């Protein structure tokens, strides 16, 4: 089996897939803790549907570099969703549900009406579940992905303490003069970038799994913010690597395999946490 893996590693597209997979897994896990704790788990899901709508639009308009359309639209979506989350008129979760379902429907509709492709359901399926798109990345796409991931990681490290303060107690931070709105906005933009990146890896329906599973698993095991963050990053990267390897060897779809491994890891962490919680008190 290992020989088979090594053989596959000779191919550049497999190496690209691994690099991109690791980077995306790393980025998506970083803000997971914040999203889970701020009760924003669902925003990832909502945004991925927005990204799907944008992708459909880009396909129909025949834009060659679809990132140029998807990224700004998703960022705008993130900003709007975070804003409405603070507004009492339409509650956050309802707003997310509304926007996400609407853009999903819109995306499928325009794909259906204007599509030039002969294999429509195949296209839709691969954007939703990311089936094989990660194995067909071009060098340019890999480069864009690397640059964006580095930006996300740098942002996270530089603003780590501020993200902590704003997540733990927004009112306190605001009252003591921290510019919470600006940071919330930044977090929203970064989430949007991560979602768009992660679409390549697992497809738009499974992105939330990539964002919340590592965070939730790490929270079973560790009890301070720094360890939880580091642990979820490591878990996420390991799961992505294992998932990609399994999917290559066993020929399963990449996205769902990674999410499957993530689920497994969560189960193990939960078990470990429960056992340890019984012993250490």
């Amino acid at each position: 089996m290992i020989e088979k893996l090594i053989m596959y590693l000779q191919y550049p597209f497999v190496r690209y897939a691994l690099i991109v997979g690791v980077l995306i897994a790393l980025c998506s896990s970083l803000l997971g803790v914040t999203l889970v704790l701020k009760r924003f788990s669902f925003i990832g899901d909502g945004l991925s549907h927005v990204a799907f709508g944008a992708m459909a639009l880009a396909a129909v308009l025949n834009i060659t570099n679809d990132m140029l359309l998807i990224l700004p639209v998703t960022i705008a979506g993130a900003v709007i969703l975070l804003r409405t989350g603070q507004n009492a008129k339409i509650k956050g979760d309802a707003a997310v549900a509304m926007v996400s379902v609407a853009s999903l429907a819109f995306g499928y509709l325009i794909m259906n009406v204007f599509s030039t492709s002969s294999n429509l359901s195949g296209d839709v399926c691969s954007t939703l579940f990311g089936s094989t798109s990660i194995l067909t990345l071009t060098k340019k796409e890999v480069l864009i992905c690397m640059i964006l991931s580095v930006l996300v990681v740098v942002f996270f490290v530089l603003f780590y303490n501020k993200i902590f303060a704003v997540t733990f107690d927004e009112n306190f931070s605001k009252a003591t003069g921290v510019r919470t709105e600006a940071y919330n906005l930044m977090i929203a933009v970064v989430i949007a970038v991560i979602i768009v990146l992660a679409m390549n890896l697992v497809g738009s329906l499974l992105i939330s799994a990539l964002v919340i599973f590592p965070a939730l698993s790490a929270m079973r095991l560790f009890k301070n913010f720094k360890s939880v963050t580091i642990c979820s990053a490591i878990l996420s990267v390991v799961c992505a690597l294992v998932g990609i390897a399994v999917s290559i060897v066993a020929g399963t779809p990449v996205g769902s395999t990674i999410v499957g491994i993530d689920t497994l890891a969560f189960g193990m962490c939960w078990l470990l946490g429960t056992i340890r919680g019984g012993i250490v008190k």
Partner: protein
Amino acid sequence: MALITVRDLSLGYENRIIIEKLNFTVNAGDYLCIMGENGSGKSTLIKTLLNLKSPLAGEILIGEGLMKNEIGYLPQQTVVQRDFPASVKEIVVSGCQSQCGLRPFYNKKEREIAQKNMERMGILKLQNRCYRELSGGQQQRVLLARALCATRKILLLDEPVSGLDPKVTAEMYSLIAGLNDEGITVIMISHDLSAALQYADHILHIGASVFFGTRKEYIKSEAGKSFLLQQKAGGNI
């Protein structure tokens, strides 16, 4: 000029006014207790003082060189905090965030301030423990230490003893009184009249009848008398 001067302040939501034409002043070193029934707008008032909400009318003047990032605030606990994986140390030092500006990491001085305030609150031994596993009283001490990291001048406390048992409540009150003796101005929301009468030197009562003055004046006033009677009849709420 006083530390905080409130002039003709009106508070409320879009079409419902809760408080109208409120006037009071807070001087450096004061211990002001804000009393009132549920829904009388105590928390709204604190939020307005902290600039988290904007008033419907009137103004809040801040004097004596008090900067916005020099206000310490002890909020009521939120749901998010109940399962937040954070160590005591991480939370306390986050009180220094306002002094950081755009600097990404805490410097040595800020870490020392955090250590000093943990010591002051008697939670130095707990510094690596997880916040959500602490008792209610310990959690309040952590949040108080964080508030002290943000200020050396003024503390705003929103019901600091709610949910604590009588012994821990008494400890908390004496802790706050100690801080006031050190020269920190305290503004506290409370339901607890006996504590207010014991510790505060000024009382602001809002609700159906509004009163502002010293503790002695309050006991003689109409608002004070009726509230006293109410609390005696209903026990401590």
